[in-house]
């Protein structure tokens, strides 16, 4: 019924066209499925929940270059002034800005001698005791910081409590444990009073991406990071007011990089955004080129066989039989291409994983891409096949 045998025979007699199609479909499948896999991985990374109120927070840096200024006092005044702005909920100095790929990190351990215990490399953020709500985080286990937890670091005082991300607690004390345990770093000992389920570090894309330790200590430095939590609807307005407001207070300093936390995050992920855009462009172009190629080759195959088609029609074949013939022929070739392509795609995925530590290619992506390619090739063969079916039988009798 489907005339597979004669179709294969015909294909074997003029291999060039079919081989070209198979090659094209196979490479397309290999490229597109791997590119899609990379794109979806990067998108997951970009859209992953960081725990912070990205839309509401403004982050920036103040460089106080005049060393005679009493910075601690100055920043207290600044924060009060900022909080007077309509729409500002909280403003505070912090030791580093999350998601910004810059800041401090350390190794903490569940044992006073870190070489004997478990260790976790983590980013740390130091700020006053209201930082959890200022960041828009929620403590999922234990309690938030209280005023008496906080120190200002004078006389070498270091806080005796900390709030950690779930990942840190899990790493040091085991799945679901860690609350009220003690952690150590150098000579400092801190009790974990609270755990935040989701909280990304300053380097969300690194091995310590989920490892964060919050410490209630408020210090001021020459190069001081500041966050301002706002009502998201008023944030754009407030961003413009930060620099003038602060410089009005004290001129001998520079306000650097006032931006939303979401923008800071975007900049951290710039490389991934670039990769996504490049790959999407590649996929789109490839789809166009391959569709054109299938269309063109089918056209060519048909125009070469005009006389044969006329002959078949003259011998009694129906239009639908001719139409079906080309559809089936194309499907056979496409399936060949898809089969070769799937193997190539998986092989390529393996190579990418081995050479560039790209996450493994998921077989289902190959399957879906293959399906789309089959549908696409059926669509592009439709018109040429229709045209073939309409070839008049008289063609056959004319010039032979």
């Amino acid at each position, binding site marked *: 019924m489907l005339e597979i045998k004669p179709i294969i025979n015909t294909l074997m007699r003029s291999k*060039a*066209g079919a081989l*070209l*199609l198979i*090659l*094209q479909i196979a*490479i*397309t499948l*290999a*490229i597109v499925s*791997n*590119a899609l896999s*990379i794109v979806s991985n990067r998108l997951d990374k970009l859209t992953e929940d960081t725990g912070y109120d990205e839309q509401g927070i403004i982050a920036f840096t103040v*460089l106080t*270059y*005049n*060393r*005679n200024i009493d910075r601690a006092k100055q920043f207290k005044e600044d924060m009060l002034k900022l909080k007077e702005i309509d729409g500002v909920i909280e403003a505070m100095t912090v030791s580093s800005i999350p998601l910004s790929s810059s800041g401090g990190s350390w190794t903490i351990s569940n044992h006073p001698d870190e070489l004997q215990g478990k260790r976790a490399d983590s980013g740390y953020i130091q700020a006053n005791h209201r930082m959890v709500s200022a960041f828009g985080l929620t403590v999922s286990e234990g309690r938030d910081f209280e005023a008496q937890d906080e120190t200002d670091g004078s006389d070498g005082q270091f806080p005796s409590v900390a709030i950690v991300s779930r990942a840190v607690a899990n790493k040091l004390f085991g799945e679901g444990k860690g609350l009220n345990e003690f952690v150590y770093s*150098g*000579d400092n000992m801190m009790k974990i009073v609270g755990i935040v389920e989701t909280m990304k570090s300053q380097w969300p894309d690194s091995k310590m991406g989920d490892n964060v330790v919050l410490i209630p200590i408020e210090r001021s430095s020459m190069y001081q990071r500041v966050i301002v939590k706002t009502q998201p609807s008023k944030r754009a307005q407030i961003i413009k007011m930060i620099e003038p407001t602060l410089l009005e207070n004290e001129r*001998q*300093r*520079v306000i*650097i990089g006032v931006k939303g936390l979401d923008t800071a995050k975007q900049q951290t992920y*710039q*490389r991934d*955004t*670039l*990769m996504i*855009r*490049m*790959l999407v*462009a*590649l996929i789109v*172009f*490839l789809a*166009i*080129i*391959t569709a*054109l*190629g299938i269309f*063109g*080759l089918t*056209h*060519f195959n048909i*125009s*070469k066989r005009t006389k044969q088609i006329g002959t078949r029609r003259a011998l009694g074949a129906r239009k639908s039989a001719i139409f079906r013939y080309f559809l089936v022929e194309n499907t056979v070739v496409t399936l060949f291409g898809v089969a070769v392509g799937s193997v190539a795609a998986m092989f390529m995925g393996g190579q*990418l994983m081995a*050479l*560039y*530590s*790209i996450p493994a290619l998921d077989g289902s992506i190959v399957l879906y891409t293959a399906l789309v390619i089959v549908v696409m090739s059926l669509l592009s063969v439709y018109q040429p096949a229709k045209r073939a079916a309409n070839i008049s039988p008289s063609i056959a009798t004319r*010039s032979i």
Partner: protein
Amino acid sequence: MLIHYLDLAWRNIKLTPLISCLMVIAIGIGIGVTMTSLSVYHMMSADPIPQKSAQLHAVQLQTMDDGQTWNTPDDIPSQLTYQDAKYLMENSPQTQSVAMMKSGAAVHLDNPESIPFIQDVRITGRAFFNMFGLSFLHGEAWSETQSEQAAPVVVIGEALAQRLFQRTDVLGESIYLDERQYEVIGVTKAWQPAIKFYDVNNGPFQRAEQVFIPFSHIEAYELHSWGNTNSWKNEDISGYAQFLHSEMVWLQFWTQINSENELKNYQQFLMDYMIQQQKLGRFNRKQLAYNVKPVNDWLKYNQVIDPDNKILVGLSFMFLAVCLANILGMLLAKFLKRAPDAGVRRALGASKRQIFFQHLVEVALLGLLGSVVGILLAQIGLIGIRETMSIYVGIAKMDWTMLLLSPVIAILACLLAGLFPAWVVCKTSPATHLKVQ
């Protein structure tokens, strides 16, 4: 003959405008995509300082105790401690050696209208300018004496001079770095290596600094690095003096080595220094280790080329292959349709060889046209890259090599695709075609 073939090719292209256009577009897209990623790769992997890359060497010392690890392939820290950097700079057997680091400052003039702005500052030795090929527009580097006395002198780039004073001849003017007053003693010509090879700490594609001050200022003004400061040891550090004598690593070190002999001397010098330090309780390890790497090895060691870019280059060449398969199909169709012409030419005495070459010339012409489209597309792609990733400004561009390589790749690719169709056409016997006509 070639001219005649070109003429024929052009006529043929005009005869079949639609399919020729499609082919040119297919090659164009293929070349456009390929050249976009290849240009970035080319700039990333290019030698940033070809005239000196073999002489300039980055120096690393294995300061860590046994068992400690680092994020480099051989676990040797990529930067030096202050005490080591200072010693090496002052005692290196070569005259041309510099320790350096990136810092930053609020730059302003001492008047109320001048709004301070942030600039990166390179703190380094006076040999820096000569070693790394900076040339002076006005003035010169600080002297040995000025360096020893930590004199408040600064060398700035011409663009910064323009920004501050609206002219470049600004010797003797004073500028402020933070609250410190400096006298401008030199203005350098614009200097921007494509890769910031001399300090890859905060990414290899950062812009070069435009403010240079003597190394002695670190100690004199208690300056901190704006690059990375890393430690591997729990040390009790209070105060700047202790920080300077700590095992923290935060300085880069470069030396110029001109011969095999000098290299041996230098290696011996490093070993001697480490053995001497071992007696003082440092370099607490069985096997002393160091690296002295020339520029290009240093860049490989630091894996400057983004793996994403390598993937894109691979994918775009595969993409080009798809475009070729496409063109091959179209060429087959086009040439076979015109096979009767070839039949007539054969009957009139043209050899198979001549027919073959005539068709290849036509294919090459298509490739050339395609490369024009491709170069235009690649420019659009590169603009897109620069827009997405601001720090790629210096490397997302097409230099002359890539511009000339585009038509070469396009034509070679098309010839490859054209071989089979041209062969099919030239082997058809003239008789069959003549009969039909």
